[in-house]
């Protein structure tokens, strides 16, 4: 085993980027720690590509990709995973759809055969489509039974008027119910192309050998017409938006969302530092104020992640006992105003930078984690983002943090959602005979 130096272990210099003639991007990274190979395929399609009335298509498609091809019949992809002692799964986001297999390194190339086949040969059996629609609807309903799932869905729909980030990734119920197999198949043909995908392979293998296998499996798949670019842009928000979701809970919840820049934009790094300063760890500003001193919330969080298009910076809190949601919201506004006017301390800045740096390393131990990082960043932006990431974080100044707090986390740029009791929780036990 080799001993690694912090920056190079996770930089991309040991990642090989190859582009096949048909446009498929292939990223390979040898990791010989465990006899494991993770292979992933990332398609540059997600809910941001969906049109009005057709939401949820990308996610539904992800489900269909496990329902078989001519070569791998229904159930066979999972069965091969089982027989080979592996694991598989997939996920869909606003910006991408990704599939992975984990296998021992003496048998992992079955994953290549499956992925190469289902880029083009997904079966779309109408009966299977209808059966899977029911599964997707159950998944959607599970989300609606979660208070945060429901509240965030409403906040995102209010924060974005035009951009498809307003739609739930799983789709709106009526759209999913109306989905047809023909439309789904057409969507698949448009976006599942080698020239719209990235294959990532990380683990215990020899790169030259793997690249030969990849070329054999994928090289003959013809490139297609590049999918149409998604051109919708969200207009500037010109004032606060507020909403209330009535629900059966007696625990009030608060979700605030501010429009914020996309991945790699200059301001994005200072906003990431700000999110950590606000709510990452017990020493953070909002934790110390609201959990420790005011004791008004059970938790408070600040989240801002990489996205292809301008996205949202989220702050969320859950009320403790019957504390006023007004007071909770006022404390957050007050803390943001304080950062805008007085900035943060040098100690807060240093601590946040160390947290970001360590997280970058501590969270990438498994080959799957490394493959996810490479695939996601290649899909959203390009690998150079990873190389320069810690340098950019390190360059953030106290003034930068105060400046982005002022320009982004302000009243006119925010959507505030509250989840409040609908009054039903008090007598939920007593009305079993009515309805």
């Amino acid at each position: 085993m080799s001993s690694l130096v912090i920056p190079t272990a996770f930089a991309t210099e040991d990642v090989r980027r190859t582009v096949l003639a048909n446009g498929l991007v292939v990223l390979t990274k040898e990791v010989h720690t465990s006899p494991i190979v993770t292979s992933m395929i990332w398609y540059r399609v997600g809910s941001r590509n969906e049109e009005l009335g057709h939401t949820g298509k990308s996610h539904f498609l992800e489900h269909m990709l496990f329902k078989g091809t001519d070569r791998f019949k229904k159930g066979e992809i999972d069965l091969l995973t089982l027989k080979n002692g592996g694991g598989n799964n997939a996920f869909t986001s606003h910006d991408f759809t990704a599939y992975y297999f984990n296998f021992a390194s003496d048998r992992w190339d079955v994953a290549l055969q499956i992925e190469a086949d289902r880029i083009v040969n997904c079966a779309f059996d109408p009966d299977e489509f209808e059966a899977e629609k029911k599964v997707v609807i159950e998944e959607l309903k599970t989300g609606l039974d979660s208070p945060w799932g429901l509240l965030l869905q409403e906040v995102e729909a209010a924060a974005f008027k035009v951009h498809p980030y307003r739609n739930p990734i799983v789709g709106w119920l009526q759209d999913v119910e109306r989905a047809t197999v023909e439309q789904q198949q057409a969507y698949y043909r448009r976006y599942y192309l080698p020239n719209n995908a990235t294959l990532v392979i990380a683990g215990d293998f020899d790169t030259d050998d793997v690249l030969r296998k990849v070329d054999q499996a994928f090289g003959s798949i013809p490139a297609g017409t590049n999918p149409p670019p998604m051109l919708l842009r969200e207009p500037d928000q010109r004032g606060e938006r507020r909403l209330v979701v009535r629900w059966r809970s007696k625990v009030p919840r608060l979700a605030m969302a501010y429009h914020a820049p996309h991945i790699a934009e200059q301001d994005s790094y200072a906003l990431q530092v700000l999110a950590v300063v606000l709510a990452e760890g017990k020493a953070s500003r909002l934790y110390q104020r609201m959990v420790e001193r005011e004791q008004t919330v059970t938790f408070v969080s600040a989240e801002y992640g990489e996205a292809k298009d301008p996205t949202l910076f989220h702050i969320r809190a859950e009320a403790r006992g019957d504390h006023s949601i007004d007071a909770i919201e006022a404390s957050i506004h007050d803390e943001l105003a304080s950062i805008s006017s007085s900035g943060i301390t040098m100690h807060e800045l240093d601590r946040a930078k160390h947290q970001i740096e360590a997280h970058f390393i501590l969270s990438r131990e498994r080959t799957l984690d490394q493959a996810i990082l490479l695939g996601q960043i290649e899909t959203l932006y390009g690998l150079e983002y990873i190389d320069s990431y810690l340098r950019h974080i390190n360059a953030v100044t106290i003034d930068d943090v105060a400046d982005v707090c002022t320009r982004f986390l302000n009243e006119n740029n925010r959507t505030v959602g509250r989840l409040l009791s609908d009054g039903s929780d008090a007598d939920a036990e007593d009305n079993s005979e009515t309805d």
Partner: protein
Amino acid sequence: MKPTELGLRRAFEVHSHTLANGLKVLLVENPSIPTVSLTGSVLAGARYDPESKAGLAIMVSRLLDEGTQNRTSLEIADAIESVGGAIEADGSFERIIGSAGVLNKDADLGLELLSDLLIRPIFPQEYVDKEKERTLAEIASALDRPQVVAGWAFNELVYQDHPLHRPSHGYPHTVERITREDLLEFHGKYFVPNNVILSIVGDFHISELLPKIEAAFGSWVPKPVVFPPYAPPVRQTEKRVKFINMPAQQLNIYLGHLGVTRTNPDYYALQVLDTILGGGAGFTARIPMRLRDELGLAYTTFASITATAGMDPGRFIAFIGTSPENMKLATEGLLNEIKRIIQEPVTAQELQDAKDYLTGSFVFAFESSPQIARFLVHAEIYGLGFDYIEKYPKYINAITVEDISRVAKMYLDSENYTLVVVGPVSEDGNIKGKWAGRDLGKENGSK
């Protein structure tokens, strides 16, 4: 497909050492990335809480980092976060675990803070009051989730008077009763070096780390530990059914009964059974294949008896989250698969596939330092041996079709089970709201 031999290549050397005060130290050098994972496991948990003060052990765990003789809560948080590390304490029925994850250059700090948390917490009154309020609020929040309500009600019915019947963090009325003196007493009784396992995995040299461990933990004074006795749980001999009304999109259905301990000799046969019945890769197992993939009844459905096996017997759980109109179909679907595996032998192919899956995917449990640190504690507590990685495939490959039939008959029960349904359903099992009367006129639960 031939089982992989590659798992053996991951075999790591475990350095096991016991300090003079009885502290068990388990170390593995893993230089693959520049981090160190430290875990201190105290072998006492919520199963020893007095019934009237249920929640005590978990509250002890949550207050460990809220102040020690040397540092305030904020000083602890600031020290670890300033180097980008994380330290946390958590509890379960069986253990209280303090853990730290740091970059290798900060291993000394991780060790120092972890020893401080375990040996010298002071449970400041101010934080005790805060933590009680917070726990009460979190219980209220958790009760918003139908699956949580269903899981808690299921445990109450399955375990009856056994300590595992209650939520590990207690009930509102028992949490309110807990005092600072209770916390100090729990700490004094169980937080002694001869009742703790320290496991550290990561990028360090054992020869350099051992003296530091000795310096941090060596002066901790041992003393005998007496665990309060309690009767083992009794497996039910009748059906127990409960419907809980909660306005929701879905019904959350738990069906099952008492399970087995981790040290049960049939544990490995039951792992194979789980893989065939309700686990495995994707939707290959019988329950997800039938209820999700074929019938489209659910996004989430599974079954397992080994997942909750511990020092105390766990539970056999078959779960499904489904739309209200599917209640009968879903419940019968779960029961039919349980009956089938009890009554009919599994096929040779099913058995072989399950074995290949378990022996092949085993290696994924040892990829990261925190995973290995957790394994070391399990190996120690359950007597698995540090050569478990080599032995495990042999245990699994020895299982026969007859073994599966035998353990299915012995440990699963399709007659005497607990059924809990939470969602838009009345207490007598009638579906509420817009589904009432639609194809369900005669529906009275699935008893």
